[in-house]
Protein backbone atom coordinates (compact mmCIF):
# COMPACT_ATOMS: atom_id res chain seq x y z
CA UNK A 1 0.00 0.00 0.00
CA UNK A 2 1.43 3.34 -1.09
CA UNK A 3 0.74 6.74 0.43
CA UNK A 4 -0.55 9.52 -1.76
CA UNK A 5 2.82 11.28 -1.57
CA UNK A 6 4.55 8.20 -2.98
CA UNK A 7 1.96 7.90 -5.75
CA UNK A 8 2.45 11.59 -6.53
CA UNK A 9 6.21 11.14 -6.80
CA UNK A 10 5.84 8.15 -9.12
CA UNK A 11 3.43 10.09 -11.33
CA UNK A 12 5.60 13.21 -11.29
CA UNK A 13 8.52 11.15 -12.56
CA UNK A 14 6.46 9.56 -15.34
CA UNK A 15 4.53 12.70 -16.39
CA UNK A 16 6.74 15.66 -15.37
CA UNK A 17 4.74 18.18 -17.40
CA UNK A 18 1.20 16.96 -16.84
CA UNK A 19 1.22 16.21 -13.11
CA UNK A 20 1.18 19.64 -11.57
CA UNK A 21 1.09 19.59 -7.77
CA UNK A 22 -0.06 17.84 -4.61
CA UNK A 23 -2.69 19.74 -2.61
CA UNK A 24 -2.00 18.74 0.99
CA UNK A 25 -5.25 19.25 2.80
CA UNK A 26 -5.69 17.30 6.05
CA UNK A 27 -8.87 15.44 5.01
CA UNK A 28 -7.52 14.04 1.74
CA UNK A 29 -4.46 15.01 -0.34
CA UNK A 30 -5.29 15.68 -3.99
CA UNK A 31 -3.02 15.31 -7.02
CA UNK A 32 -3.61 18.03 -9.62
CA UNK A 33 -3.11 17.08 -13.26
CA UNK A 34 -3.67 18.71 -16.63
CA UNK A 35 -6.97 17.94 -18.40
CA UNK A 36 -5.40 16.98 -21.73
CA UNK A 37 -3.37 14.09 -20.31
CA UNK A 38 -5.71 12.71 -17.67
CA UNK A 39 -6.58 9.60 -19.68
CA UNK A 40 -2.88 8.75 -20.13
CA UNK A 41 -2.29 9.21 -16.41
CA UNK A 42 -5.30 7.03 -15.64
CA UNK A 43 -4.14 4.28 -18.01
CA UNK A 44 -0.79 4.37 -16.25
CA UNK A 45 -2.41 4.24 -12.81
CA UNK A 46 -4.54 1.27 -13.84
CA UNK A 47 -1.93 -0.81 -15.63
CA UNK A 48 1.27 -0.27 -13.61
CA UNK A 49 2.40 -2.95 -11.20
CA UNK A 50 2.17 -1.65 -7.65
CA UNK A 51 -0.50 0.92 -8.49
CA UNK A 52 -3.27 -1.18 -10.10
CA UNK A 53 -6.11 1.29 -9.66
CA UNK A 54 -8.73 -0.98 -11.16
CA UNK A 55 -11.79 0.90 -9.95
CA UNK A 56 -13.09 4.44 -10.35
CA UNK A 57 -15.20 5.05 -7.25
CA UNK A 58 -16.63 8.37 -8.29
CA UNK A 59 -16.05 11.18 -10.76
CA UNK A 60 -17.46 14.57 -9.80
CA UNK A 61 -17.67 17.88 -11.54
CA UNK A 62 -17.23 21.01 -9.45
CA UNK A 63 -17.76 24.69 -10.23
CA UNK A 64 -14.85 26.55 -8.68
CA UNK A 65 -16.64 29.91 -9.12
CA UNK A 66 -13.28 31.71 -9.06
CA UNK A 67 -13.97 33.96 -12.05
CA UNK A 68 -15.16 37.51 -12.18
CA UNK A 69 -18.57 37.81 -10.51
CA UNK A 70 -21.15 40.25 -11.87
CA UNK A 71 -24.32 40.94 -9.91
CA UNK A 72 -27.29 41.77 -12.11
CA UNK A 73 -30.14 44.13 -11.23
CA UNK A 74 -32.40 41.28 -10.11
CA UNK A 75 -29.78 39.99 -7.70
CA UNK A 76 -28.64 37.04 -9.79
CA UNK A 77 -24.94 36.45 -10.32
CA UNK A 78 -23.06 35.86 -13.56
CA UNK A 79 -19.55 34.46 -13.47
CA UNK A 80 -17.05 35.14 -16.24
CA UNK A 81 -13.77 33.31 -16.60
CA UNK A 82 -12.30 31.07 -13.94
CA UNK A 83 -12.36 27.30 -13.97
CA UNK A 84 -14.45 24.17 -13.61
CA UNK A 85 -12.90 21.10 -12.03
CA UNK A 86 -13.29 17.34 -12.20
CA UNK A 87 -12.35 15.14 -9.24
CA UNK A 88 -11.47 11.47 -9.69
CA UNK A 89 -11.55 9.14 -6.70
CA UNK A 90 -9.71 5.95 -7.58
CA UNK A 91 -9.26 2.76 -5.67
CA UNK A 92 -7.25 -0.41 -6.07
CA UNK A 93 -9.31 -3.36 -4.91
CA UNK A 94 -6.32 -5.72 -4.90
CA UNK A 95 -3.90 -3.40 -3.05
CA UNK A 96 -6.55 -1.49 -1.02
CA UNK A 97 -5.10 1.92 -1.76
CA UNK A 98 -6.87 5.08 -2.81
CA UNK A 99 -5.93 8.24 -4.62
CA UNK A 100 -7.70 11.46 -5.61
CA UNK A 101 -6.97 13.33 -8.82
CA UNK A 102 -8.18 16.72 -9.91
CA UNK A 103 -8.11 18.55 -13.21
CA UNK A 104 -9.18 22.14 -13.84
CA UNK A 105 -10.40 23.46 -17.14
CA UNK A 106 -11.37 26.98 -18.27
CA UNK A 107 -15.02 27.78 -17.68
CA UNK A 108 -15.48 29.38 -21.08
CA UNK A 109 -14.43 26.26 -22.97
CA UNK A 110 -14.36 23.35 -20.54
CA UNK A 111 -12.74 20.33 -22.18
CA UNK A 112 -11.34 17.27 -20.44
CA UNK A 113 -10.17 13.99 -21.95
CA UNK A 114 -12.60 11.19 -21.21
CA UNK A 115 -11.49 8.25 -19.07
CA UNK A 116 -14.35 6.08 -20.29
CA UNK A 117 -11.87 3.87 -22.13
CA UNK A 118 -10.04 3.24 -18.84
CA UNK A 119 -13.04 2.53 -16.61
CA UNK A 120 -16.49 1.96 -18.07
CA UNK A 121 -18.01 3.32 -14.86
CA UNK A 122 -16.84 6.77 -15.96
CA UNK A 123 -19.41 6.74 -18.76
CA UNK A 124 -22.43 7.85 -16.75
CA UNK A 125 -20.43 9.93 -14.27
CA UNK A 126 -19.01 11.96 -17.17
CA UNK A 127 -22.44 12.30 -18.70
CA UNK A 128 -23.67 13.62 -15.37
CA UNK A 129 -20.80 16.11 -15.13
CA UNK A 130 -21.59 17.23 -18.68
CA UNK A 131 -25.28 17.50 -17.83
CA UNK A 132 -24.75 19.50 -14.66
CA UNK A 133 -21.69 21.62 -15.50
CA UNK A 134 -21.33 21.54 -19.27
CA UNK A 135 -17.88 19.99 -19.11
CA UNK A 136 -17.13 18.39 -22.49
CA UNK A 137 -15.37 15.06 -22.24
CA UNK A 138 -13.38 14.55 -25.41
CA UNK A 139 -13.60 11.11 -27.05
CA UNK A 140 -16.58 10.10 -24.90
CA UNK A 141 -18.67 7.63 -26.96
CA UNK A 142 -22.10 8.91 -25.95
CA UNK A 143 -22.01 12.38 -24.39
CA UNK A 144 -25.68 13.24 -23.84
CA UNK A 145 -27.61 14.74 -20.97
CA UNK A 146 -28.53 12.08 -18.46
CA UNK A 147 -30.67 13.39 -15.59
CA UNK A 148 -32.08 16.55 -17.17
CA UNK A 149 -34.38 16.29 -20.21
CA UNK A 150 -32.51 15.88 -23.50
CA UNK A 151 -33.92 19.17 -24.79
CA UNK A 152 -33.08 21.25 -21.70
CA UNK A 153 -31.69 24.46 -23.13
CA UNK A 154 -31.42 26.69 -20.07
CA UNK A 155 -27.84 25.85 -19.22
CA UNK A 156 -26.17 23.68 -16.63
CA UNK A 157 -27.98 23.48 -13.27
CA UNK A 158 -25.12 22.90 -10.84
CA UNK A 159 -23.09 25.88 -12.00
CA UNK A 160 -23.09 28.50 -9.30
CA UNK A 161 -24.54 31.17 -11.60
CA UNK A 162 -27.38 29.02 -12.95
CA UNK A 163 -30.69 30.81 -13.37
CA UNK A 164 -34.00 28.99 -13.50
CA UNK A 165 -35.69 29.53 -16.86
CA UNK A 166 -39.16 31.04 -16.97
CA UNK A 167 -40.53 28.43 -19.33
CA UNK A 168 -39.49 24.95 -20.43
CA UNK A 169 -41.20 23.82 -23.67
CA UNK A 170 -44.12 26.16 -22.96
CA UNK A 171 -44.53 24.97 -19.36
CA UNK A 172 -44.01 27.44 -16.54
CA UNK A 173 -41.01 26.39 -14.42
CA UNK A 174 -41.23 28.29 -11.09
CA UNK A 175 -44.12 26.95 -9.05
Amino acid at each position, binding site marked *: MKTREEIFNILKQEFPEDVLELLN*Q*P*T*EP*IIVASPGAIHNICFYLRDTEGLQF*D*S*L*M*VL*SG*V*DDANGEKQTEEDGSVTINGGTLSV*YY*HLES*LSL*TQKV*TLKVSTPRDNPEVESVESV*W*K*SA*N*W*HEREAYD*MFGIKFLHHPDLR*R*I*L*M*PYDWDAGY*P*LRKDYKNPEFYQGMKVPY
Partner: protein
Amino acid sequence: MALKTEEMVLNMGPQHPSTHGVLRLEVELDGELVLDVKPHIGYLHRCFEKHAEAMNYNQIVPYTDRMDYLAAMYNSFGYALAVERLLGIQVPERVEYIRVIMGELQRIASHLVAVGTYGVDIGAFTPFLFGFRDRESILTLFEMTCGARMLYNYNWVGGVSHDLHPDFVPMTREFLKYFKGSLVEFNNLLSYNKIFIERTANVGVLPLDTAVNYGVTGPNLRASGLKWDLRKNDPYSVYDRFDFEIPVGSGEKGTTGDCWDRYYVRIREMEESVKIIEQALDQLPDGDVHSAIPKRIKPVVGSIYSRVENPKGELGYFIISDGTVNPYRMKVRGPSFVNLTVMGELCKGHLVADVIAILGSIDIVLGEVDR
Protein backbone atom coordinates in the same frame (compact mmCIF):
# COMPACT_ATOMS: atom_id res chain seq x y z
CA MET B 1 -39.21 -16.53 -50.85
CA ALA B 2 -37.28 -15.32 -47.81
CA LEU B 3 -39.25 -13.54 -45.14
CA LYS B 4 -38.29 -9.89 -44.76
CA THR B 5 -37.00 -9.18 -41.25
CA GLU B 6 -35.62 -6.09 -39.59
CA GLU B 7 -34.38 -5.01 -36.18
CA MET B 8 -36.83 -3.31 -33.92
CA VAL B 9 -36.65 -0.91 -30.98
CA LEU B 10 -38.95 -1.61 -28.07
CA ASN B 11 -39.53 0.84 -25.23
CA MET B 12 -40.02 -0.69 -21.83
CA GLY B 13 -41.35 1.86 -19.41
CA PRO B 14 -41.24 4.56 -18.05
CA GLN B 15 -44.22 2.97 -16.30
CA HIS B 16 -43.58 -0.70 -17.01
CA PRO B 17 -44.40 -2.74 -13.88
CA SER B 18 -41.13 -4.63 -13.88
CA THR B 19 -38.91 -1.56 -14.00
CA HIS B 20 -39.37 -0.93 -10.25
CA GLY B 21 -40.04 2.75 -10.72
CA VAL B 22 -39.91 5.22 -13.54
CA LEU B 23 -37.16 3.88 -15.76
CA ARG B 24 -37.25 3.60 -19.53
CA LEU B 25 -35.33 0.82 -21.21
CA GLU B 26 -34.74 1.23 -24.92
CA VAL B 27 -34.35 -2.36 -26.06
CA GLU B 28 -32.96 -3.15 -29.51
CA LEU B 29 -34.34 -6.46 -30.69
CA ASP B 30 -33.65 -8.93 -33.45
CA GLY B 31 -36.74 -11.07 -33.18
CA GLU B 32 -36.69 -12.10 -29.54
CA LEU B 33 -32.93 -11.67 -29.15
CA VAL B 34 -31.71 -8.56 -27.36
CA LEU B 35 -28.98 -6.70 -29.23
CA ASP B 36 -28.60 -3.79 -26.83
CA VAL B 37 -30.33 -2.13 -23.89
CA LYS B 38 -30.05 1.58 -23.23
CA PRO B 39 -31.48 2.78 -19.90
CA HIS B 40 -32.97 6.29 -19.91
CA ILE B 41 -33.10 7.79 -16.44
CA GLY B 42 -33.90 11.13 -14.86
CA TYR B 43 -37.66 10.82 -14.42
CA LEU B 44 -37.28 11.15 -10.66
CA HIS B 45 -34.57 13.81 -10.71
CA ARG B 46 -35.14 16.10 -7.73
CA CYS B 47 -31.86 18.05 -7.79
CA PHE B 48 -30.64 16.74 -4.44
CA GLU B 49 -27.15 18.06 -5.05
CA LYS B 50 -28.39 21.57 -5.88
CA HIS B 51 -30.69 21.58 -2.85
CA ALA B 52 -27.82 20.49 -0.62
CA GLU B 53 -25.81 23.58 -1.56
CA ALA B 54 -28.56 25.82 -0.21
CA MET B 55 -29.04 24.07 3.14
CA ASN B 56 -26.97 23.60 6.25
CA TYR B 57 -25.61 20.21 7.17
CA ASN B 58 -28.46 19.21 9.49
CA GLN B 59 -31.18 20.05 7.02
CA ILE B 60 -29.75 17.66 4.44
CA VAL B 61 -30.39 14.51 6.52
CA PRO B 62 -34.08 14.12 5.54
CA TYR B 63 -33.16 14.57 1.89
CA THR B 64 -30.69 11.68 2.06
CA ASP B 65 -33.53 9.47 3.31
CA ARG B 66 -35.37 10.11 0.08
CA MET B 67 -32.66 8.84 -2.23
CA ASP B 68 -32.73 5.10 -1.64
CA TYR B 69 -36.10 5.13 0.06
CA LEU B 70 -35.94 1.40 0.79
CA ALA B 71 -32.76 1.90 2.80
CA ALA B 72 -33.31 5.34 4.29
CA MET B 73 -31.65 4.41 7.57
CA TYR B 74 -28.41 3.53 5.83
CA ASN B 75 -28.34 6.63 3.63
CA SER B 76 -28.45 8.95 6.60
CA PHE B 77 -25.92 6.72 8.39
CA GLY B 78 -23.49 7.25 5.52
CA TYR B 79 -24.17 10.97 5.41
CA ALA B 80 -23.76 11.47 9.15
CA LEU B 81 -20.51 9.51 9.04
CA ALA B 82 -19.18 11.66 6.17
CA VAL B 83 -19.89 14.93 7.96
CA GLU B 84 -18.49 13.58 11.23
CA ARG B 85 -15.27 12.64 9.44
CA LEU B 86 -15.12 16.10 7.91
CA LEU B 87 -15.63 17.68 11.34
CA GLY B 88 -13.37 15.19 13.07
CA ILE B 89 -15.83 14.34 15.83
CA GLN B 90 -16.23 11.01 17.58
CA VAL B 91 -19.74 9.84 18.45
CA PRO B 92 -20.56 7.90 21.66
CA GLU B 93 -20.28 4.11 21.52
CA ARG B 94 -23.98 3.66 22.10
CA VAL B 95 -24.72 5.72 19.00
CA GLU B 96 -22.35 3.58 16.93
CA TYR B 97 -24.07 0.41 18.09
CA ILE B 98 -27.57 1.77 17.56
CA ARG B 99 -26.59 2.85 14.04
CA VAL B 100 -25.21 -0.58 13.24
CA ILE B 101 -28.34 -2.31 14.59
CA MET B 102 -30.63 0.02 12.65
CA GLY B 103 -28.46 -0.25 9.54
CA GLU B 104 -28.47 -4.03 9.54
CA LEU B 105 -32.23 -4.18 10.19
CA GLN B 106 -32.57 -1.84 7.24
CA ARG B 107 -30.36 -4.12 5.15
CA ILE B 108 -32.67 -7.04 5.90
CA ALA B 109 -35.72 -4.92 5.03
CA SER B 110 -34.15 -3.74 1.79
CA HIS B 111 -33.08 -7.24 0.76
CA LEU B 112 -36.54 -8.59 1.58
CA VAL B 113 -38.03 -6.14 -0.89
CA ALA B 114 -35.31 -6.99 -3.41
CA VAL B 115 -35.84 -10.75 -3.32
CA GLY B 116 -39.61 -10.43 -2.91
CA THR B 117 -40.11 -8.20 -5.93
CA TYR B 118 -37.63 -10.31 -7.83
CA GLY B 119 -39.97 -13.22 -7.31
CA VAL B 120 -42.83 -11.14 -8.69
CA ASP B 121 -40.77 -10.26 -11.76
CA ILE B 122 -40.21 -13.94 -12.43
CA GLY B 123 -43.83 -14.84 -11.75
CA ALA B 124 -43.87 -15.99 -8.13
CA PHE B 125 -46.24 -13.84 -6.11
CA THR B 126 -46.32 -15.57 -2.73
CA PRO B 127 -42.68 -14.96 -1.65
CA PHE B 128 -43.32 -11.25 -2.18
CA LEU B 129 -46.05 -11.32 0.46
CA PHE B 130 -43.83 -13.32 2.81
CA GLY B 131 -41.08 -10.74 2.36
CA PHE B 132 -43.38 -7.82 3.03
CA ARG B 133 -44.83 -9.53 6.09
CA ASP B 134 -41.38 -9.82 7.65
CA ARG B 135 -40.39 -6.33 6.55
CA GLU B 136 -43.46 -5.08 8.37
CA SER B 137 -42.01 -6.34 11.68
CA ILE B 138 -38.82 -4.36 11.03
CA LEU B 139 -40.78 -1.23 10.14
CA THR B 140 -42.66 -1.63 13.43
CA LEU B 141 -39.32 -1.63 15.25
CA PHE B 142 -38.31 1.56 13.42
CA GLU B 143 -41.66 3.16 14.12
CA MET B 144 -41.29 2.35 17.78
CA THR B 145 -37.89 4.05 17.82
CA CYS B 146 -38.43 7.23 15.84
CA GLY B 147 -42.07 7.39 14.81
CA ALA B 148 -41.57 6.96 11.07
CA ARG B 149 -41.94 3.83 8.99
CA MET B 150 -40.14 4.73 5.82
CA LEU B 151 -38.26 8.04 5.95
CA TYR B 152 -36.81 8.32 9.41
CA ASN B 153 -34.57 11.39 9.77
CA TYR B 154 -32.93 9.26 12.44
CA ASN B 155 -29.14 9.43 12.05
CA TRP B 156 -28.17 12.99 12.84
CA VAL B 157 -24.68 14.41 12.63
CA GLY B 158 -23.11 13.45 15.96
CA GLY B 159 -25.90 11.22 17.22
CA VAL B 160 -29.35 9.81 16.62
CA SER B 161 -32.69 11.53 17.09
CA HIS B 162 -34.16 9.19 19.73
CA ASP B 163 -32.73 6.67 22.12
CA LEU B 164 -34.05 3.10 21.89
CA HIS B 165 -37.46 2.30 23.30
CA PRO B 166 -37.24 0.07 26.43
CA ASP B 167 -39.01 -2.73 24.53
CA PHE B 168 -36.75 -2.44 21.50
CA VAL B 169 -34.09 -4.97 22.52
CA PRO B 170 -36.47 -7.80 23.56
CA MET B 171 -38.68 -7.23 20.53
CA THR B 172 -35.71 -7.27 18.16
CA ARG B 173 -34.44 -10.51 19.69
CA GLU B 174 -37.87 -12.03 19.27
CA PHE B 175 -37.98 -10.90 15.65
CA LEU B 176 -34.54 -12.33 14.89
CA LYS B 177 -35.51 -15.67 16.39
CA TYR B 178 -38.61 -15.76 14.24
CA PHE B 179 -36.82 -14.45 11.16
CA LYS B 180 -34.25 -17.26 11.07
CA GLY B 181 -37.08 -19.75 10.59
CA SER B 182 -38.74 -17.45 8.11
CA LEU B 183 -35.61 -17.45 5.94
CA VAL B 184 -35.64 -21.26 5.76
CA GLU B 185 -39.24 -21.03 4.62
CA PHE B 186 -38.28 -18.42 2.04
CA ASN B 187 -35.52 -20.67 0.70
CA ASN B 188 -37.88 -23.60 0.35
CA LEU B 189 -40.47 -21.46 -1.33
CA LEU B 190 -38.32 -19.58 -3.83
CA SER B 191 -34.55 -20.11 -3.76
CA TYR B 192 -34.61 -23.82 -4.58
CA ASN B 193 -37.76 -23.70 -6.67
CA LYS B 194 -37.03 -25.47 -9.95
CA ILE B 195 -38.90 -22.98 -12.12
CA PHE B 196 -37.14 -20.08 -10.42
CA ILE B 197 -33.73 -21.68 -10.95
CA GLU B 198 -34.54 -22.35 -14.63
CA ARG B 199 -35.36 -18.68 -15.10
CA THR B 200 -32.31 -17.28 -13.29
CA ALA B 201 -29.37 -19.69 -13.40
CA ASN B 202 -26.92 -19.05 -16.27
CA VAL B 203 -28.82 -15.86 -17.15
CA GLY B 204 -27.08 -12.49 -17.22
CA VAL B 205 -23.65 -13.73 -16.18
CA LEU B 206 -21.45 -10.86 -14.98
CA PRO B 207 -17.74 -11.76 -15.15
CA LEU B 208 -15.63 -10.32 -12.34
CA ASP B 209 -13.36 -8.11 -14.47
CA THR B 210 -16.37 -6.54 -16.19
CA ALA B 211 -18.00 -5.93 -12.83
CA VAL B 212 -14.93 -4.14 -11.46
CA ASN B 213 -14.44 -2.10 -14.63
CA TYR B 214 -18.06 -0.96 -14.56
CA GLY B 215 -17.73 -0.03 -10.89
CA VAL B 216 -20.38 -2.53 -9.81
CA THR B 217 -20.43 -2.90 -6.01
CA GLY B 218 -22.43 -4.54 -3.27
CA PRO B 219 -24.16 -7.92 -3.61
CA ASN B 220 -23.82 -7.72 -7.40
CA LEU B 221 -20.03 -7.60 -7.18
CA ARG B 222 -19.87 -10.29 -4.51
CA ALA B 223 -22.08 -12.56 -6.64
CA SER B 224 -19.34 -12.40 -9.28
CA GLY B 225 -17.00 -14.01 -6.79
CA LEU B 226 -15.03 -11.19 -5.14
CA LYS B 227 -15.00 -11.01 -1.35
CA TRP B 228 -15.34 -7.23 -1.20
CA ASP B 229 -17.41 -5.62 1.49
CA LEU B 230 -16.60 -2.19 2.92
CA ARG B 231 -17.71 -3.38 6.34
CA LYS B 232 -14.64 -5.65 6.29
CA ASN B 233 -12.35 -4.10 3.66
CA ASP B 234 -12.61 -0.46 4.74
CA PRO B 235 -14.17 -0.76 8.20
CA TYR B 236 -16.17 2.13 9.58
CA SER B 237 -18.19 2.62 12.76
CA VAL B 238 -17.83 -0.51 14.97
CA TYR B 239 -18.08 -3.19 12.29
CA ASP B 240 -14.61 -4.49 13.12
CA ARG B 241 -15.95 -5.82 16.44
CA PHE B 242 -18.39 -8.29 14.94
CA ASP B 243 -17.85 -11.75 13.59
CA PHE B 244 -19.58 -12.31 10.27
CA GLU B 245 -18.95 -13.80 6.85
CA ILE B 246 -19.01 -12.13 3.45
CA PRO B 247 -21.16 -14.34 1.20
CA VAL B 248 -19.92 -14.63 -2.38
CA GLY B 249 -21.41 -16.21 -5.48
CA SER B 250 -20.11 -19.66 -6.31
CA GLY B 251 -22.12 -20.68 -9.34
CA GLU B 252 -24.01 -23.22 -7.27
CA LYS B 253 -26.89 -23.55 -9.74
CA GLY B 254 -25.17 -22.31 -12.90
CA THR B 255 -22.28 -19.95 -13.58
CA THR B 256 -20.65 -17.64 -11.04
CA GLY B 257 -22.17 -14.19 -11.35
CA ASP B 258 -25.51 -15.20 -12.83
CA CYS B 259 -28.91 -13.90 -11.71
CA TRP B 260 -29.40 -16.73 -9.24
CA ASP B 261 -26.09 -15.96 -7.56
CA ARG B 262 -26.99 -12.29 -7.25
CA TYR B 263 -30.30 -13.30 -5.73
CA TYR B 264 -28.83 -15.86 -3.35
CA VAL B 265 -26.03 -13.60 -2.07
CA ARG B 266 -28.79 -11.33 -0.76
CA ILE B 267 -30.48 -14.21 1.05
CA ARG B 268 -27.22 -15.17 2.71
CA GLU B 269 -26.42 -11.58 3.59
CA MET B 270 -29.63 -11.42 5.58
CA GLU B 271 -28.37 -14.37 7.64
CA GLU B 272 -25.13 -12.49 8.28
CA SER B 273 -27.02 -9.33 9.24
CA VAL B 274 -28.94 -11.36 11.81
CA LYS B 275 -25.60 -12.45 13.29
CA ILE B 276 -24.34 -8.85 13.45
CA ILE B 277 -27.50 -7.57 15.14
CA GLU B 278 -27.41 -10.36 17.73
CA GLN B 279 -23.81 -9.53 18.64
CA ALA B 280 -24.53 -5.80 18.70
CA LEU B 281 -27.51 -6.30 21.01
CA ASP B 282 -25.30 -8.34 23.35
CA GLN B 283 -22.60 -5.66 23.46
CA LEU B 284 -24.91 -2.60 23.46
CA PRO B 285 -23.38 -0.06 25.89
CA ASP B 286 -25.18 2.64 27.86
CA GLY B 287 -24.77 6.30 27.14
CA ASP B 288 -26.36 9.52 26.03
CA VAL B 289 -27.23 9.54 22.32
CA HIS B 290 -27.35 13.34 22.14
CA SER B 291 -24.11 14.23 23.88
CA ALA B 292 -21.95 14.63 20.75
CA ILE B 293 -24.43 16.52 18.56
CA PRO B 294 -22.71 19.79 17.62
CA LYS B 295 -24.63 23.02 18.19
CA ARG B 296 -23.43 24.48 14.95
CA ILE B 297 -21.82 22.62 12.10
CA LYS B 298 -19.14 24.61 10.36
CA PRO B 299 -16.36 22.42 8.95
CA VAL B 300 -13.00 23.79 7.91
CA VAL B 301 -12.17 24.31 4.25
CA GLY B 302 -11.52 20.97 2.63
CA SER B 303 -13.07 18.01 0.94
CA ILE B 304 -13.81 14.42 1.86
CA TYR B 305 -15.01 11.30 0.12
CA SER B 306 -16.60 8.97 2.63
CA ARG B 307 -18.39 5.75 1.83
CA VAL B 308 -20.38 2.99 3.47
CA GLU B 309 -21.71 -0.40 2.41
CA ASN B 310 -25.34 0.37 1.72
CA PRO B 311 -27.63 -2.65 1.06
CA LYS B 312 -27.21 -1.99 -2.68
CA GLY B 313 -23.48 -1.34 -2.73
CA GLU B 314 -20.98 1.43 -2.14
CA LEU B 315 -22.74 4.63 -1.13
CA GLY B 316 -20.29 7.52 -1.18
CA TYR B 317 -20.62 11.18 -0.27
CA PHE B 318 -18.14 13.61 -1.74
CA ILE B 319 -18.43 16.84 0.22
CA ILE B 320 -16.50 20.03 -0.40
CA SER B 321 -16.65 22.56 2.39
CA ASP B 322 -15.74 26.22 1.91
CA GLY B 323 -15.81 26.93 5.63
CA THR B 324 -19.41 28.11 5.77
CA VAL B 325 -22.49 26.42 7.24
CA ASN B 326 -23.59 25.14 3.82
CA PRO B 327 -21.67 22.53 1.83
CA TYR B 328 -20.04 24.04 -1.27
CA ARG B 329 -20.58 20.88 -3.28
CA MET B 330 -22.20 17.58 -2.45
CA LYS B 331 -21.90 14.68 -4.83
CA VAL B 332 -23.50 11.35 -4.13
CA ARG B 333 -22.14 8.17 -5.57
CA GLY B 334 -25.26 6.07 -5.56
CA PRO B 335 -24.74 2.32 -5.88
CA SER B 336 -27.92 1.90 -7.94
CA PHE B 337 -26.77 4.59 -10.38
CA VAL B 338 -23.48 2.85 -11.06
CA ASN B 339 -24.86 -0.70 -10.99
CA LEU B 340 -27.43 0.19 -13.63
CA THR B 341 -24.68 1.07 -16.16
CA VAL B 342 -23.85 -2.62 -16.59
CA MET B 343 -27.40 -3.40 -17.76
CA GLY B 344 -26.64 -3.17 -21.49
CA GLU B 345 -23.61 -5.42 -21.15
CA LEU B 346 -25.57 -8.07 -19.23
CA CYS B 347 -28.55 -8.25 -21.56
CA LYS B 348 -26.71 -8.70 -24.87
CA GLY B 349 -27.65 -11.99 -26.50
CA HIS B 350 -30.45 -12.83 -24.10
CA LEU B 351 -34.19 -13.06 -24.73
CA VAL B 352 -36.66 -10.28 -23.95
CA ALA B 353 -38.04 -12.13 -20.95
CA ASP B 354 -34.52 -12.33 -19.50
CA VAL B 355 -34.22 -8.53 -19.53
CA ILE B 356 -36.79 -8.52 -16.72
CA ALA B 357 -34.93 -11.23 -14.83
CA ILE B 358 -31.64 -9.35 -15.17
CA LEU B 359 -33.01 -5.95 -14.19
CA GLY B 360 -34.66 -7.42 -11.11
CA SER B 361 -31.46 -9.15 -10.08
CA ILE B 362 -29.46 -5.89 -10.14
CA ASP B 363 -31.90 -4.44 -7.57
CA ILE B 364 -32.04 -0.72 -8.27
CA VAL B 365 -34.04 2.01 -6.58
CA LEU B 366 -34.82 4.80 -8.99
CA GLY B 367 -34.99 7.41 -6.25
CA GLU B 368 -31.27 6.96 -5.85
CA VAL B 369 -30.40 6.56 -9.54
CA ASP B 370 -31.94 9.96 -10.28
CA ARG B 371 -31.43 11.63 -6.89
